[in-house]
């Protein structure tokens, strides 16, 4: 069953893989035959990627960026979950903060990066602030939804069995809302990665985004494309890792304490 699904999945992605191969070939040929500075052959880019990786030029910023991402998302998670849970439980808080959260979700908060730069300088604090600005509101929104998502009859059932509010919160509301919490975390990380790279490119000298700026400024296109490939893979990997973690946590939740 799972094998035939794998085969079906592969068959479904054939057109994409063919188009990808075609694009790669076109890139390589165009890069070799023309002399555009913006289009180094794909093989040169991959060679640059291998070279940068071997020299450790990428690993250090990668770790550095990951640390900043984890710090920012961690703060968003703590603060966001607290605010979101409060909004989910108490209607006055929900009504008071709702419009601000909604605005924070959709407004171009990236406009604050120049302010962060002036206040926090060209260091890690600025990009952490950017990560938080990008991720905290989605965590709040999902935490609030998570608390509200619980089936009312479950809470009433808890009351009827004499469960304390504390118990009802941890044993009924939190497990029932777990999928929404996890969705908030996943989206928080997805947005956080964007915040991270945005912040770094604008700060211009730290992390992966700093490398983009560095190679972009000197038109070292093979190295620039190599870094872009790393960032694409990094974004996909970060979101993928959190999704995987989320599935494990939710699956294990019913057996937990």
């Amino acid at each position: 069953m799972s094998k035939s699904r794998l085969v079906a999945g592969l068959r479904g992605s054939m057109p994409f893989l063919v188009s990808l191969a075609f694009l790669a070939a076109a890139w390589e040929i165009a890069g070799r035959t023309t002399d555009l500075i913006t289009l180094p052959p794909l093989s040169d880019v991959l060679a640059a990627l291998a070279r940068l990786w071997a020299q450790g030029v990428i690993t250090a910023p990668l770790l550095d960026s990951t640390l900043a991402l984890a710090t920012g998302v961690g703060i968003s998670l703590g603060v966001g979950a607290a605010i979101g849970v409060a909004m989910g439980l108490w209607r006055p808080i929900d009504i008071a903060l709702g419009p601000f959260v909604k605005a924070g979700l959709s407004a171009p908060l990236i406009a604050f990066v120049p302010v962060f730069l002036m206040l926090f300088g060209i260091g890690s604090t600025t990009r952490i602030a950017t990560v938080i600005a990008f991720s905290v509101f989605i965590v709040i929104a999902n935490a609030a939804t998570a608390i509200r998502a619980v089936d009312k009859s479950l809470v009433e059932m808890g009351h009827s069995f004499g469960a304390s509010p504390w118990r009802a919160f941890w044993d009924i509301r939190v497990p029932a809302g777990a999928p929404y919490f996890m969705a908030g975390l996943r989206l928080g990380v997805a947005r956080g990665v964007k915040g991270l790279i945005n912040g770094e490119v604008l700060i211009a000298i730290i992390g992966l985004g700093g490398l983009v700026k560095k190679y972009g400024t000197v038109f070292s296109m093979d190295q620039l494309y190599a870094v872009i490939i790393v960032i694409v893979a990094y974004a996909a990997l970060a979101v993928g890792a959190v999704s995987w973690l989320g599935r494990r946590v939710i699956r294990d939740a019913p057996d937990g304490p």
Partner: protein
Amino acid sequence: MTRSTPLMAGAGPHRRVLDSWWGRLALRLVALAAFLLLWQWAGDDSLPLLFPTFTRTLGAAWDLAADGRLFAALLATNQSLVVGFGLAVGVGIPAGIFVARVRLVDQVLTPYLTLLVAVPIIALIPVIQALLGLSFAARVTVVLLFALPYVVINTAVAVRRVDPALTEMGRSFGASRRTVLFDVLLPAAVPGIMTGVRIALGQALIGMVVAELTIVGDGVGSLIAELQGRFRVAPVLAVAVAVVIEGIVLMSIVEWIERRLSRWSTA
């Protein structure tokens, strides 16, 4: 209506007030006032390089507005938003319909669109800059790249989610493929498409700011750069707040249009 539980007990007596629009508005105004007071208290106006108070930021905004620089900058910046977002909607909706209706187009395009959604577009800006220079076209391209995938993906999902009974109904009355598309599928997909348009506008706004800050034109980007050079936080914050408020206003307008066009879909 949510039933009151012991953890929500505090909400009980206020229920009636909170259910009226003026009660909610009052509560929100109180929250806004508290936020501004907090801002005022956290600010420190002793040096221009410190986090400014609300009143100083307001003053800076007034100065920028009074000499017309703020509006001139916003006007210049918004040109890339209008063109880029317009292109995203104009190209994205037909493209989304193709993705929904033609399997091969779906299989080829969707992975790239998903990638564009996942990737921080700002990483591509040096490439765009190398190709198009520090031009208006480059800024439009950035806005387009931010917004387009959301329009296409949401349109495709909306068209695909249309109740198959509706298209069957259309066909049973002998409607042509064209009639089914324009009289049944597309109207039914409007709410979903509008959701995509709204999300795409949010992204386009981010794209507009990113483009301004990286491919500096004669808009907000250069204004911020100039103010930054003079180490004055308050006017920079004022410009940022102006952009954010503009974003909130535009989003509210699109959301209002979305609600109007989707009225029939919510009972």
